[in-house]
């Protein structure tokens, strides 16, 4: 795949920034508005898919190679697990205990602010990273027909 014409390339290089920003917005405001980690992650991945369609697969692989994306995928999942595990060491000592909310933000005034809801925005960030990277990986791997790439993706 060499990519499409110059018109498509120019427009998509503009639009990709907007899509990426929108994805980040959806993730960061996940606890206040509809959306969150999964939806935002899908949007992040879709900006890369747009690039892949416009510029060809090789261009995208130069920017975000398979091993790096796979590392990001794992880091997202590990962050999520770590946030859940931290709950075990604070106060109520319970898995998934929302320790930030309970210990530092136990104040009704903070509702509907960006920094509120304790660990939920952090989990959203981790999930967004995980979903974005893994969807990107799935699409990249499915678009290659080389027989030596192992095609085993989960979630």
């Amino acid at each position, binding site marked *: 795949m060499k990519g499409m014409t110059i018109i498509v390339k120019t427009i998509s290089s503009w639009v990709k920034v907007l899509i990426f920003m929108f994805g980040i917005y959806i993730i960061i405001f996940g606890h206040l508005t509809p959306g969150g980690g999964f939806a935002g992650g899908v949007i992040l991945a879709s900006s890369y898919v747009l690039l892949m369609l416009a510029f060809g697969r090789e261009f995208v692989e130069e920017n975000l190679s398979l091993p790096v994306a*796979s*590392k990001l*995928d794992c880091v997202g*999942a*590990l962050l999520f*697990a770590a946030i*859940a*595990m931290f709950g075990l060491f604070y106060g109520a000592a319970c*898995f998934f205990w929302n320790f930030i909310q309970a210990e530092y933000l136990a104040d009704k005034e903070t509702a509907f602010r960006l920094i509120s809801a304790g660990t939920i925005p952090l989990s959203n960030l981790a999930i967004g990273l995980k979903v974005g990277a893994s969807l990107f990986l799935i699409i990249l791997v499915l678009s290659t027909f080389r027989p030596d790439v*192992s095609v085993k993706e989960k979630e």
Partner: protein
Amino acid sequence: MTVPLPIFVAVPLATAFLLPVFAKRGKAVATVLANLATVSLLVMALCSIGQTRVYEVGRWSIPLGINLVLDGLSCLLLLAISVVSTAAMLFSVRYMEQYTAKAKYLSLFLLMVGGMNGVVLSGDIFNLFVFLEIASIASYALVGFGCGNEELEASFKYMVLGSIASTFILFAIALVYGNTGSLNMAYISKAIQGSGLNAGLAFALSLFIVGFSLKAALVPFHAWLPDAHPSAPAPISAMLSGVLIKALGVYALVRVLFNVFGISVSMGWILIILGLSSMVAGAFLAMGQWDFKRLLAYSSISQLGYVILGIGLGGLIIAQGGNLAWASLAILGGLFHLLNHAVYKSLLFLTSGSVEMSTGTRQLKQLGGLAGKLPFTRAACTVASASIAGIPPFSGFWSKLILVIAAVQAHFYWIAAIIVFVSLCTLIMYLKVQRYVFLGELPENLQQTKENRGSMLVAMVFLACLCVLMGLLVIIPALRNSILEPAVKVLTDGLEYSTKIIKL
């Protein structure tokens, strides 16, 4: 020692995502980490024997949040999963050297273990579905791991039937939620006791039975198992046959039938018929096979029939208001057979993997005379075969004996006769394995065969020792009261489960 219950799920999942990070640094680190995870799970499972606890995740009280429940039945399955996964993981240290992507294999393996632990511990029916899907998706990928023609085809077949089963289960969960307004199993059970079984719930129940029977490969729904289990790498076949079909199929089915909907006479008969047809059809189909692992896979269907038969017989006696002692004896037989089957069937699959790795084939007709070449594998295989066929000192004998006694006491003489008959068929098919693999003439091309040493040997010896010692679980009252009796009690209590959980 009280282990926080989510650890059983979190440790394998977190390790699974930690492993690909080490993929470049060297397989050794990843392998050691994965083994550490399974061994620590085994230790934690041993620590939580005999406890009954409810864990509210994130401190959300029961009807609102997700809860995890540890009771006797969960503990039994947890033990089986951790024993088999420890042995299989140890075995794959050496066995998986022949495949390329070992780190990916290890993380899929751990995902599967985490999913199964989640299914067993979950007290929330939708959560059970999520963990069931994690375990099944990991197992679909593992079945196709070799990426050969047969593996891909078997994986596709397994995946289609498995996905249909999952959709059925999800549909049933939706119907249950619509009719009872809750997803917590204890609260659903309370709501059903209050309202009785209406049309929607009855439909949901039938969907549950079909879905979980598909996952457990009981006989009308068994088409995927004989393809999927032989195609996977040997340690994975051991996991799939040893515990996956039990945790995803039998455990979930039994939990839903006994503790959520409440057992009735017709459901007891359904379980008995499913069990009997699996036993007989599985045994006959297994006898005609010439592929080592395929024979073992069919024999899994047959042995799973015993488990379902024992539990169904107990349920029938309870539903008819019969003697509770006979019912608990039948259920004890079924659950003990489940534990035994987990151990000896995984051992048999591991020995088949060892034979395949040494000789490069698993066709019975091309093998022979390996007794001298593979002495340890031969010994392990003989112990497991004797155990599965029910030769007295080994574990399989005790569970089958208990089942026969229970059937005779409840005056189901024909069921007892069928149990003994299928046991004879099992003996015949394992004599066939012994005859064609380890005895007879050694073919010319197998003269150079060498025994597999190292981790594979340790795993096989570990399981073989368990096979011999498992009989003690029923003979010594202290062990029986701490491991098997609580599990039986969960099932004989039936619907009282809900009041107990809500009180805790």
